[in-house]
């Protein structure tokens, strides 16, 4: 399935569009998507540290999706680097 991963914060620098699109196995977990994103970033945005992806969370508009969760069927997900509000 095609997944569109919206980028935030420091990860915006991975792509000027503010998102990356990737092919991942249907019904795959967030853990699998994380690995796919690591590979994508390593190839396309090597200035971004791998550790930043490791420390990032994935989320829908409603909630954080931890590693064991499935990627939403509509193929939209956000990747959230460590936060620093206020």
């Amino acid at each position, binding site marked *: 399935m095609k997944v569109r991963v919206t980028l935030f914060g420091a990860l915006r620098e991975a792509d000027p569009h503010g998102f990356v699109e990737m092919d991942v196995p249907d019904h795959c977990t967030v853990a699998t998507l994380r690995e796919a994103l690591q590979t994508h970033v390593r190839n396309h945005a090597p200035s971004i540290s791998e550790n930043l992806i490791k420390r990032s969370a994935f989320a829908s508009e409603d909630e954080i999706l931890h*590693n064991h969760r499935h990627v939403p069927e509509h193929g939209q997900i956000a990747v959230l680097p460590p936060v620093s509000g206020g």
Partner: protein
Amino acid sequence: MTDIYTAVVDIAHAPLNPAAALEFVSDPRFGGIATFIGRVRQHNHGRVVTGITYDLFDPLALRIFQEIGERARAEVGGPLKLYIAHAKGSLRIGDFAVVIAAATPHRDEAFRACRLAIEAVKHEAPIWKQEHYVDGDSAWSEGCSLCEEHREAELAAAQQSKQTHGHGH
């Protein structure tokens, strides 16, 4: 619930408004109002800052603000009005980044709710801060991971550091 107001404010359109926060939490039942206002300051970690860009994942941020409000209500265990608004976009020195106001019958609960809310906004909401420096450089702040594998260890470390030398972020 109409007792909890949450907002993400694009400051290209309007600044945060502390007076509106005060207005929202006002209620003849309440004698104590505690507020916290975060402003962009000129120095951070010894560097001269000229401005800050805030990036937010709006829909999730609003949900999390609401969740924080419910948690504050449970913690207070009585009537509470709570206002949480965070700025989004490019802020200059002195601009308001966040405005929290909590009102309750007595002051102790108001302080507790206000403190709980700002700490949770800082550590849990999908908000990112890019500092711009006088030398033209800029940097995204190192923050708190929302990823469960990292979160517990980082929160424990933050607690530790808070006890020994104050709270850095």
